[in-house]
């Protein structure tokens, strides 16, 4: 079996005794970072829970302003992007770097589609005046303080969209590094970590979707 010469970026760092320890430490670190992201979003979920519990009528009435078709489409898009991400990592694990780059690009593309759809949703709301807080000017929703729903909607989906953008930057960087042959079946930790982050972004949307679009 040929030994691939190392790219200059991979090194067994001085304070680790072997590559397994280094890789496992990286994964552990990433899981802890994902824990912090769960608690970061969690604050907004808490605000959602409290405002929905005390204003169930507004949440029910206001959620109809959201387009269910676009929301479902976006959910499908993100799920597919998770699949392509997982398959991309798998390809690199099997030393099929070109396929890996292809699937990473597909993930990037699907993420872009998600953001485009979100852009259309947001601009529609801007157009109608369904905005958070003091900017709310829409008159078609019954109930006191309907802007509360939109405050929660925009903060949650806005923060999520920011994370999608950050994920896209990370995936682009992985595509760049993969094209420069930094990764192989022997070493793919950064892609794996990016994948973990991306799956978390998907998981957050899996909860956002029913909470915002499917208020019963």
């Amino acid at each position, binding site marked *: 079996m040929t*030994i*691939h*010469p*190392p790219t*200059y970026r991979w*090194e*067994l*760092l*001085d304070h680790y005794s*072997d*590559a*397994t320890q280094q*890789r*496992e430490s990286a*994964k*552990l670190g990433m*899981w*802890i970072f*994902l*824990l912090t992201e*769960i*608690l970061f979003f*969690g*604050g907004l979920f*808490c605000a959602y*829970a*409290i405002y929905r*519990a*005390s204003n169930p009528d507004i949440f029910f009435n206001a959620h109809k302003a959201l387009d*269910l078709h676009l929301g*479902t489409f976006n959910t*499908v898009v993100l*799920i*597919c992007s*998770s*699949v392509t*991400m*997982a*398959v991309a990592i*798998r390809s690199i*694990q*099997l*030393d099929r770097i070109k396929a890996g780059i292809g699937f990473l690009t597909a993930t990037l593309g699907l993420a872009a589609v998600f953001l485009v759809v979100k852009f259309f949703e947001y601009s529609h709301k801007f157009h109608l005046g369904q905005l958070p807080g003091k900017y709310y000017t829409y008159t078609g929703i019954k109930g006191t303080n309907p802007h509360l729903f939109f405050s929660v909607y925009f903060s949650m989906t806005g923060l999520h969209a920011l994370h999608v953008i950050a994920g896209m930057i990370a995936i682009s960087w992985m595509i760049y590094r993969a094209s420069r042959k930094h990764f192989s*079946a*022997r*070493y793919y930790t950064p892609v794996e970590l990016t*994948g*973990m982050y991306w*799956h*978390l972004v*998907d*998981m957050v949307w*899996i*909860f956002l*979707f*029913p*909470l915002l679009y*499917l*208020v*019963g």
Partner: protein
Amino acid sequence: MLSPYGMLSRYGMISPYGNQNRYAPDMSAKSKKGTHILPLKLYLGVGIALLVLTATTVTIAQIPLGPYNLVVAMCIATIKALLVAFFFMHLWFDNKFYLVIFGTAIAFLGIFIMLTMFDTMRRGDIYQEVAKPFQPEAVIYEKATPDTTTSHDTTGVIPSEHK
């Protein structure tokens, strides 16, 4: 010194010593326990399951079930999230400690939401208490005919101060 490697090693960010394995050791699935490669069918299967569950949750949301709409939607969302976590993120196959970390995050989030809602959901409780005198037969409460010029709030009124 001008190469990136040179600079990084100069400042200890990549160390030239103690590093016996200049070539990456074989970390592929064939030789290392734990770095498994999952079959493509599994990923596709989970993906299809997620899409089916999405369709299910959208369909059920159209049926009015009252408060159970939220319960059902959250259950389905939880299953979807667990599928992503266990299979796409390899939680099922990896070191069980990662599961502890994931569980801890959810648990503390739950504590946060639960204890906060103990406050926000029970704010009104005090109003049931205020209306009732603590001990109706106590001397401190007015027993004379109601005075129409003052308020009827008799809690804690000491007779000498009334008037």
